C-alpha cells in the first residue's frame, strides 16, 4: 500500500515523497536536498507517542534525535556515507536499533521493547552481545522504513523449520514473527584462546526476515 514512501536512488540515498497531511520522521541532519515546500521540525519527544513514550526512550537509550518532516514535496535522505536499505512493512513489526533509523513514515507506530521480555535473562545477554543493549525500537504498521547499515544489506528470509544464524555484529534488524536466541558454540578452544571468533551467534527462527550487513562494524 504505502509503497510510494521511499524510493532508492542509489545504495546510499533514498528519496521520500511528502504530501500534505502526511508525516515522516527522520534522523536530524540527514536531509541532503529537497524540492517543494517542506519543513523540518526537531522532534522534542524523539518520535511518536506522548511524554511517557519519550521518557521510556530516554531511559532505554533509544532516544536518537529525530525531526518531523511535513509539507509537500520530495526529500532526499542519506547519512554518513552509510548504505541505506528500505524495508516495507505490511502490518508486521520491525525491530531495529534507533540509531540505525534514517527515516520512517508517520503511519508506523513506534515503540520501545525490552529485550528481557523475549527470553528473560538470555534475552538481556543477547542484547549485550549484539550491541542492541537492553532495549530496542520497534516499528509496527503499514509503511516504509529506511535503515542504515555499514556495507550493503542482504535480506535473509526465515521460514518455520529453517532457522537462520547471524553474527551478532552483522545483525541489522528483523521483522515478522521471529523468536531469537543466542546460541553459543563455546568449546575448550575458546577457553585457551584458540577460538574461531564465531562463538556467539544469533539464532532466529519462526517466519519473517532478518537483515544482515556486509560488515561487522557497528554504526
Amino acid at each position: 500500500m504505502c509503497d510510494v514512501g521511499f524510493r532508492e536512488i542509489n545504495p546510499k540515498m533514498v528519496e521520500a515523497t511528502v504530501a500534505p497531511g502526511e508525516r515522516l520522521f527522520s534522523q536530524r541532519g540527514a536531509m541532503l536536498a529537497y524540492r517543494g515546500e517542506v519543513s523540518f521540525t526537531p522532534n522534542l519527544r524523539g518520535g511518536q507517542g506522548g511524554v511517557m513514550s519519550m521518557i521510556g526512550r530516554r531511559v532505554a537509550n533509544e532516544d536518537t534525535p529525530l525531526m518531523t518532516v511535513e509539507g509537500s514535496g520530495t526529500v532526499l535522505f542519506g547519512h554518513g556515507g552509510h548504505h541505506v536499505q528500505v524495508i516495507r512493512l505490511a502490518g508486521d513489526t520491525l525491530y531495529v536499533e534507533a540509531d540505525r533509523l534514517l527515516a520512517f513514515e508517520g503511519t508506523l507506530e513506534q515503540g520501545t521493547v525490552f529485550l528481557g521480555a523475549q527470553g528473560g535473562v538470555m534475552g538481556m545477554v543477547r542484547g549485550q552481545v549484539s550491541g542492541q543493549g537492553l532495549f530496542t525500537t520497534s516499528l509496527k504498521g503499514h509503511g516504509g522504513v529506511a535503515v542504515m547499515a555499514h556495507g550493503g544489506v542482504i535480506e535473509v528470509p526465515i521460514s518455520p523449520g529453517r532457522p537462520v544464524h547471524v553474527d551478532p555484529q552483522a545483525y541489522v534488524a528483523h521483522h515478522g514473527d521471529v523468536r531469537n536466541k543466542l546460541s553459543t558454540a563455546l568449546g575448550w578452544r575458546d577457553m585457551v584462546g584458540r577460538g574461531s571468533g564465531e562463538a556467539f551467534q544469533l539464532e532466529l527462527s519462526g517466519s519473517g526476515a532478518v537483515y544482515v550487513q556486509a560488515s561487522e562494524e557497528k554504526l
Partner: protein
Amino acid sequence: MSVVHHDPSTLPVDDNVNPYTFCVELAGSQWFLQKGKMIAYYGAIEFNGIGHGRLDRLVRTSFHSPLHASDWVVAEGSGKMLLADRAFDVNSFDLEDGNLTVRSGNLLAFQPSLSLKQSIVPGFLTLIGTGKFVAASNGPVVFMEPPLRVDPQALVGWADCPSPCHHYDHGYMTGVLGGLRALTGLGGASGEEHQFEFVGAGTVLLQSSEALLPEQPAGGTPHEPGVPGGGAHGAPGAPPGAPRLPGQLGDLQRRFGL
C-alpha cells in the same frame, strides 16, 4: 566478488575501473591532476609539478586565476594512469562548451582543454570549455534539476545554474513556543535550518552523504573592495584537522613554490 585482473590492454580508456578508480589514457596528451591522486600507471608518463619553466604557457592558458598551481601536476606522455582518492567514489564528467562549478576538494583531474577558474563562491572552482574532468564524491553523485534546496555538505557542484544562494528555514523558531525553544535551547535544532537554494535552468550535483571531502585551497583572491572573500580570511590554508596527504607540506610547501 572475484578479483578482476587488468593489464594495459584491458584497462578502460578514460573510464572507471571500479567505482573508486578511474583510468586515463594518455597518447602524447596532457592531463592536470591534483598532487597525490595518481595511484599507478603503465607506459611512459612524466609528472611535472607546475610552477615555472617550460610548462609556463600551459599553465597560463588553463589556469586563469592566481590559483595554487603548485597543488597541481601535469601528466604528460603515453600510457594509462589510474586515479583514486582515499576510496571515495570517482566519476568523470564531460563538458561541452559548458561551465561547471565544483567544490575545490572534489576535483581530481581535468583535461587542459578546460580552463580552471576560481569561483566567486569561496571554496569552489569553475571549469569552462570543452573536455573531461574527474571528480570524487562520498557516495555516487546524483544529478538534480532546480528548483532545489540542498544541504551545504551534500553539495558537490552545479552546472549552468546562475543562482546559488542561501536559504534559511526556521519556521519552528517563530511564535511563542518557537521563541521559548530558541531561548532555552529545549527541543534542539533540526540541523536543517540552512540550505543552498538553486532556481532556474541547470543541473545540481549532490553526493549521497553529508561527509565532506577535505577542502583544497582554491587560492587567494585579490585584496580589492567588492571581491568576496578578498583576503579577509587570511591565508586560505587547509582547514585544521583535514588529513594531509603524505608528501605534502601544506602552507610551507606552497610558500616556497615546491
